[in-house]
């Protein structure tokens, strides 16, 4: 197991280099010159200004040269300067990644808890109204576009009912908590600022629910299918025959085993949610990596585009690795790396 993890960790930089190379090439084959984002509209006609900007941003060099400089800088942790924000991309990501992680973790908690619960209910009451209702709820969540459900939920819960605040991470009248993790809920707790914690948590509820809802469908369907499979197994019948309560049979015997395939889905969902947070962040004015990526793509901000791609790639690779490890820990039959066939 340890050898497997080490091997995967060693391979990760190479895989990331591949991601960087592809992202670099793709961003340089776009339709327009990134100088249009750097030089003002009026100045695009001024050749002297255009050339000065080209030189200043290193765009006068050949593509291979730009690539080598970029990779060289990358090795020192320098992701370049964003054409749009004029700040180091690493700094931008440091501010924005925690926002996305906070949203994604909250969405995962909601998606996993609700997905598992719905899956269990649906399997336990197979082909009965509860099953149909759970499946319908999951289906709606999985198939409704986030931009639509987000706006509707905002309108209902924020505007009409006034139960939850509108877009943003925090009430604009308040100030962000001192930066520790970058996650406002955690940082406000660390600072002992409960008013800010309340504001941050209340702002998190709606976008996390919207994003988590898309995951509920996938998780609940997987859990339902696994549970139906497991509930027919002999050891479940044995447990029931031995007089175990239905709740104990469901949670301790059936769910524990049914969760193993769902674990893969949950693991992959993390990476999916990180990249899938783009629309949610846009709707809820959530200043995370997703909205950063959208703005970067719109403004041909090459360093930011590549930076986000690296983060997304790393998140996917890490999630993959962690899922494999969790899979091996949960299911003793699975042995990765050093497994020997019998």
């Amino acid at each position, binding site marked *: 197991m340890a050898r497997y993890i080490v091997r995967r960790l060693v391979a990760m930089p190479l895989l990331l280099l591949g991601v960087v190379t592809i992202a670099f090439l793709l961003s340089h084959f776009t*339709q*327009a*010159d*990134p*100088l*249009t*984002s750097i030089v*003002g*509209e*009026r*100045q*695009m*006609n*001024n050749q*002297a*200004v255009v050339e*000065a900007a080209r*030189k*200043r941003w290193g765009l006068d060099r050949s593509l291979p040269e730009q690539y080598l400089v970029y990779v060289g800088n990358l090795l020192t942790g320098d992701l370049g300067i964003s054409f*749009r*924000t*004029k*700040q180091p991309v690493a700094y*931008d990501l440091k*501010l924005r990644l925690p926002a996305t992680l906070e949203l994604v973790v909250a969405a995962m908690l909601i998606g996993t808890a609700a997905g598992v619960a719905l899956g269990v209910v649906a399997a336990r009451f197979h082909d009965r109204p509860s099953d149909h209702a759970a499946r319908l709820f999951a289906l709606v969540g999985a198939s409704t576009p986030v931009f639509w459900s987000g*706006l509707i939920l*905002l*309108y209902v819960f*924020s*505007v009409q009912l*006034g*139960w939850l*605040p*509108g*877009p*943003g*991470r925090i*009430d*604009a*009248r*308040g*100030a*962000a908590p001192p930066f520790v993790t970058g996650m406002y809920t955690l940082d406000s707790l660390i600072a002992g600022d*409960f*008013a800010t*914690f*309340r*504001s941050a*948590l*209340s702002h998190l*509820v709606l976008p996390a629910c919207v994003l988590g809802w898309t995951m509920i469908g996938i998780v609940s369907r997987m859990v339902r299918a696994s549970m139906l499979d497991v509930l027919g197994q002999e050891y479940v019948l044995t447990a029931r025959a031995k007089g175990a309560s239905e709740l104990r049979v469901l949670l301790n015997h059936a769910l524990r085993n049914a969760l193993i395939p769902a674990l893969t889905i949950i693991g992959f969902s993390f990476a999916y949610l990180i990249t899938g947070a783009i629309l949610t962040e*846009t709707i809820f*004015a959530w*200043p995370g990596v997703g*909205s*950063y990526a959208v*703005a970067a793509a*719109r*403004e*041909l901000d090459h360093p930011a585009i590549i930076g986000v791609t690296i983060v997304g790639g790393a998140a996917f690779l890490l999630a993959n690795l962690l899922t494999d490890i969790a899979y091996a820990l949960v299911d003793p039959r699975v042995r990765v790396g050093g497994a020997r066939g019998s």
Partner: protein
Amino acid sequence: MKPSLRAGYRRWLGALALAGTAVASGPVAAQDQQPLVIARLLEINSLDPHRAFCDTCQIYLTATYQGLVALGADNRSIEPLLATSWEINPDQTEFTFHLAEDAVFADGSPVEAKDVKWSFERLKNIQGSPSFMMSGVAAIETPDEHTVVVKMDAPNSEFLGILTAPYTIVVNSDVAAEAGARAGADAVSADTAEAWFLSHSAGSGPYVLDTYRVDDELRFKRNENFWGEAPPIAEIVIDHTADAVSQAQMLQSGAADIAMQIDPATAETIDSDEVVIETVPSFNFIYVAFSPGAEANRVPLTLEVRQALAFALDYDGIIEFTVGGEGNPQASPIPNGFPGTTDLPMPVEDLDKARQMLADAGLADGFDLDVVVASLNVYGVDLPLLMQKIQQDLARVNVTTHIQPVASSVWREQIVKPGIPFTARFYAPDYYGSAQYVYFFGMIEDAYWLTNASGGQPESLINPREGELLEQALATADEAKREAIYHEIALQMIADRIIVPVVSPNLVLAYRNNVAGVRYSACCNLPLAELSLK
């Protein structure tokens, strides 16, 4: 003793319940102790005062810096600011300013003539978007600490107006230079201060920059060393709110005090006694533009063809379709209310004339026209949607338009080369004065639209009369005479038919009823220092 698992669960459940209670209980803090919140799309290209060039930048610069003069609340008059008085020589080539002796920057140091000279030179030499405002400045002299003499290389009666633009503000040169700012001829390559300005302001304005987080918020706090009357509100936040619907929601819920980009249609959906909605005419406008020099033209876009297409547009329908009637027609590329625009002939729809003119040009059967437009919604007008309306209008004279919506950055490149045969765009003034429009839209040498529309052959479109008239206007001190000259220039620009304004959208001022001082400024959008709470 190790706590039991069950006890651990209980603790977590308790924490969750506490969190839930906290979420449900809502905002509590007193209004008067909280900052004023403005909901607005935060599209900022830079906070470097000499590189910044955007609508939000105008608000920022006006709040944190000051210029020599300011635009009055009537959006026409020029008032003293850092300069208490000034003299202009008869031929409009020399401007002498006398600085207020008690003016200080936010760090308490005095505003001196050297700061003005340094700021103007940096603005010119850094070659940022607003650098054009200093074109024509030949020399800046500082005979003493409180006197600045600006010498122009040609008469410029509009220079005082230019100095009301927030881009011509005065920066604390010592502080900025220490942060890497340079004003010399090599500033374009030697200056390294742009990133520093993202977290610092260095002006003498009523506010200072507190924090700026990209796509999140721009926070101001009162300048405790402000040399003028202290602004009523201690802290103001511009909260990044991308769309009009979200801004309206924030306004209604009380999360925001002012919403700045609500379009008339969204304003109609606001139903609250606590929200004030005012609709005022603006100087912003949307126009369509022809580029006869664009490579993609399938037929020559001659003057006759351009005139015919302009006659084919349903101007009233466009205003109704785009802003629900909450806008005004505009005759020339100089906006209504600016010098020279009184009694200009408004554009008219005349389909018969359009058809006749196209027939005379041998195009009775029509032709295909490529349209590239940026996917933008500006001043409540969705540009691709506007083009769909125009597509229907032009179809009536057998012209088939092929609309291609593109990202703004793609548009900015294509308009220069290979050119775009037909497009739609927008413009907002930088200050009160008509010359800025001639420099941008006129068919005069080096004008932005002459270069774009001519496809590298400016002589094909240049209108020498416009250049002559502009020269006269800039050399004329008499306001009435200047107005008459700009009127003639406007007529010439209408006749060019390169730029056809289609709507000047009204501006919706939307704010909570306890807010006072909300107004539209032609140069500065929203002067924050004038805001107060009732």
